[in-house]
């Protein structure tokens, strides 16, 4: 990739951000590529070491505050006509409840995800705790010569220990996955504001 191709792709990836921000970013990367070349690297190699312009653009967008993106979006909007304003006012009883519903549903989904994760962790914790309890129970049963109950309790104790260990790794993986998903959706929301696909 040439330096110009790199800068063009970065610029395309940043479209929707404030113009001044884009210019500053492009100058920053352009300077670094120039300096790499001055250091004796080929243009191709200088660009390669600087990184993938699409990934860099995504990273820049994900670090830009949402308020800044919205402000830029609103600034670039055409001024509203009289008809649009009248419709907006008349439609208020319709769109306002819809807006509230949208945010409520989004909030509900967040709460549900965390509630599920939380309950899984609690279940795992409870099973881990029940294992030593059942073990003590087994000893008590054996001491009272109640062999059948004793073995049942002992078996349940081992089973709980095993399941809780397995579940611990399951919960951990699921929690990690959820956090990654939420981070991904944070980038997705920003791209949605910028009016971009994917």
């Amino acid at each position, binding site marked *: 990739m040439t330096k110009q191709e790199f800068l063009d792709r970065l610029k395309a990836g940043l479209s929707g951000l404030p113009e001044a921000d884009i210019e500053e970013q492009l*100058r*920053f*990367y352009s*300077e*670094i590529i120039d*300096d790499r070349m001055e250091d004796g690297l080929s243009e191709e190699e200088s660009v390669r070491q*600087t*990184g993938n312009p699409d990934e860099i653009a995504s990273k*820049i967008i994900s670090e830009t505050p949402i308020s800044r993106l919205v402000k830029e979006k609103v600034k670039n909007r055409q001024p509203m006509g009289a008809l649009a304003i009248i419709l907006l006012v008349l439609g208020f009883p319709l769109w306002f409840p819809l807006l509230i519903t949208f945010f409520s549903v989004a909030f509900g989904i967040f709460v549900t995800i965390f509630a599920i994760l939380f309950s899984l962790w609690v279940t795992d914790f409870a099973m881990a705790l029940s294992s030593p309890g059942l073990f003590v129970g087994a000893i008590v049963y054996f001491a009272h010569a109640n062999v059948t109950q004793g073995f049942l309790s002992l078996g349940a104790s081992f089973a709980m220990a095993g399941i809780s260990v397995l579940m611990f790794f399951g919960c951990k993986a699921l929690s990690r996955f959820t956090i990654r998903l939420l981070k991904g959706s944070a980038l997705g929301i920003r791209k949605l504001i910028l009016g971009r696909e994917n």
Partner: protein
Amino acid sequence: MDIQLKRGLLDVCVLAAIKDEDSYGYKIIKDLGPYIQLSESTLYTILKRLESAGMLTVRSAEHDGRLRKYYHITDAGLMRIEDFKEDWKEIMTVYSFVTKEEGND
């Protein structure tokens, strides 16, 4: 390394890289290379943060027919490095406590 810890360290590293003389983007990355890994996009964010915190100033100067941005440390930036050194003494005290426990096992 822990992300939060690295973020704090990187700020000080960038300040240290411009402490003795003004420096520019590529040189900062190259100077820090042997010590800590730093991507261009991360450096950009750090430079912006340090600039708005008043710890460094930026000037553009012509170099070889093109413009290059040079970063200059301010008194507040120098102070930040001194604070870091002080903090580090405390951290080392905690570190010696933590590792002492391990040694007894």
